[in-house]
């Protein structure tokens, strides 16, 4: 076919590219240039005192929980603990904005969010204790298993939210991921699917400045992680991740939007990991004390405590009571974690498939025989 033979050549008239209709107005998708804040601003007045007090209690508990869990690693009672000290506002708000029927998709660092949602802390720590991979029934609690391979839980959240919507259920999924996790392909694919399907899902990125030792500047050159939303056609929100009220508000709005069929939102919460990556990490290798110190002055608990005290919403007694409750929780946790976990080695073969294959039956028999021999040996 030569050019001259091109069909339609006779009637040729240049037109604008026919497919070009901008699908969405990008302006409302763009995050504000500064992280949204509530505490210490006029916006705080609009918050129910009960909510602020609830947030405070949970933050204090959360901080104590993080400290206790880290202590348990030193006592050999946890294999490893990735602390969320400094990030409690995000952890707690993520749990509190959800209804009971909603689903939470935590990353490996987010045991606190699961606990704040009501999960038994011992069940939440099962994985990190070296006990079974997941310590709870995800369906009972509507909490997906703590996810270790980074960002892989995000498409799960999208699929689950989409499935709920197809079934006509009024369910929202909230998925948590770190700044480092946003670099993974799964982050991209999940956000894209969510936007195309208009799935009722909220993505919460806790930008705590580091992926283990790698600072944000080596992770992305974006104006903010929230700006990534635009490329998927969903709104991006930037929030001060240490301002529990602000995180609660932004997440609540995103959840409400998702619930009413408005589709997904990407929320970037700017925060900081005060502790090392895990108890096994040496943070002095990659960051200076002064940076940590600076962030200690922007502490989520103190921000909220200041708001509460300055407005007489809490007094010394209330503060002490929150601390005491947290201390009691920690004592209970310590005590319960001091009991040895009881595992059944035969569980290794029990849940690979719905029905054990002949091969697994053979292998189970082998282990059973070995265990019997071991037990006999013990007796002798």
């Amino acid at each position, binding site marked *: 076919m030569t050019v001259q033979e091109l069909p339609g050549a006779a009637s040729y008239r240049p037109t604008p590219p026919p497919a070009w209709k901008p699908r969405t107005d990008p302006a409302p998708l763009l995050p504000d240039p500064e992280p949204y804040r509530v505490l210490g601003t006029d916006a705080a007045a609009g918050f129910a005192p009960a909510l602020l007090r609830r947030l405070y209690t949970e933050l204090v508990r959360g901080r104590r929980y993080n400290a206790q869990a880290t202590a348990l690693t030193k006592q050999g009672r946890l294999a490893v603990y990735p602390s969320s000290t400094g990030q409690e506002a995000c952890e707690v708000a993520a749990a509190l904005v959800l209804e009971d029927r909603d689903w939470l998709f935590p990353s490996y660092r987010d045991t606190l969010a699961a606990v704040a949602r009501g999960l038994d802390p011992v069940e939440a720590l099962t994985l990190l204790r070296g006990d079974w991979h997941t310590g709870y029934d995800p369906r009972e609690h509507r909490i997906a298993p703590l996810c270790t391979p980074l960002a892989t839980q995000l498409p799960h959240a999208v*699929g689950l939210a989409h*499935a709920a919507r197809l079934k006509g259920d009024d369910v929202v999924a909230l998925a948590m991921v770190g700044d480092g996790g946003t670099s993974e*392909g799964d982050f991209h*694919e999940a956000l894209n699917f969510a936007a195309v399907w208009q799935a009722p899902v909220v993505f919460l990125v806790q930008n705590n400045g580091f992926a283990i030792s790698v600072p944000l500047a080596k992770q992305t050159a974006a104006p903010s992680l929230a700006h990534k939303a635009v490329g998927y056609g969903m709104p991006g929100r930037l929030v001060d991740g240490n301002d529990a009220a602000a995180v609660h508000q932004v997440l609540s709005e995103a959840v409400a939007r998702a619930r009413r069929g408005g589709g997904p939102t990407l929320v970037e919460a700017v925060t900081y990991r005060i502790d090392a990556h895990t108890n096994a990490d040496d943070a002095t290798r990659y960051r200076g004390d002064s940076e940590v110190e600076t962030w200690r002055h922007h502490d989520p608990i103190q921000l909220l405590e200041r708001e509460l005290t300055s407005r007489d919403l809490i007094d010394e007694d209330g503060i002490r009571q929150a601390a005491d409750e947290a201390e009691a929780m920690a004592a209970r946790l310590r005590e319960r974690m001091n009991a040895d976990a009881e595992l059944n080695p035969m569980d290794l073969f029990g849940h*690979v498939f*719905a029905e054990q294959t002949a091969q697994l039956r053979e292998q189970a028999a082998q282990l059973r025989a070995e265990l019997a021999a071991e037990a006999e040996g013990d007796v002798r």
Partner: protein
Amino acid sequence: MTTVAAKPATMAQALQRAMRDAMAEDPTVHVMGEDVGTLGGVFRVTDGLAKEFGEDRCTDTPLAEAGILGTAVGMAMYGLRPVVEMQFDAFAYPAFEQLISHVARMRNRTRGAMPLPLVVRVPYGGGIGGVEHHSDSSEAYYMATPGLHVVTPATVADAYGLLRAAIASDDPVVFLEPKRLYWSKSDWSPDTPAQVEPIGRAVVRRTGRSATLITYGPSVPVCLEAAEAARAEGWDLEVVDLRSLVPFDDETVCASVRRTGRAVVVHEANGFAGPGAEIAARVTERCFHHLEAPVLRVAGFDIPYPPPMLERHHLPGVDRILDAVARLQWEAES
């Protein structure tokens, strides 16, 4: 039954019918993948499903295999039964992390609380003149991943029956569809009473006394042809179609090998660390004193899949199978 041709049906049609029947019976069955909706799939295996059940039940996804499988995991977590199509074998690789780290492990991770009943359909194998990345036999990867069932039909009837079983299974199933048998016909037709084939049972396709050919998927017809040709050489070959690589049917396979005393494993996948390695090793472990000769393997060479013009040199053909049979130390017997 407007979308299914009159009998005899092709394997592609039988697969379509299996999904259609499953979708009609069970509203939780959802088909998803690239081009599965409007187009009906590049092999037309999902033809008509979107029209019949709507786009929410048979969904054209964005082009991202990890995203497809990852969202399917989430859907299964909520109680749906997703049937995922990977467009070609090599295009399932981006989804490996989801497959290995989640699909295969979710049930075990949660001690049974959260099973993942999902099917990953993967067209596989060569012989269709496909350019690079369109002819891989990737079953060794799936077999080496505990927690997955790995199933592959060789006949039209099995395509229907095994896919129905895979969709009904409460475990994740990697369902390998031999591309070059998509258009193969048989006496199966959509009017055949719907027969579900239980997963995990091999079948003897041809009985024989001299030696056993152990095979599956695209190599089954080749082995049957080889068995015919072997008659001229005086060999009466038995042909076992595994149908399911995981779980493995030791009983059927070993019964045959114990009877014949000789075996050759035949598949398209590369030989080294391929499926035949496991098959040869376990048959030897279990039938050692019945064996007159080592279990031999006729497999693809240990090379990346060749370009179309050379693929016939790579694929196990009748001659290469007969050569292997000839090397089964027949003198030793007498």
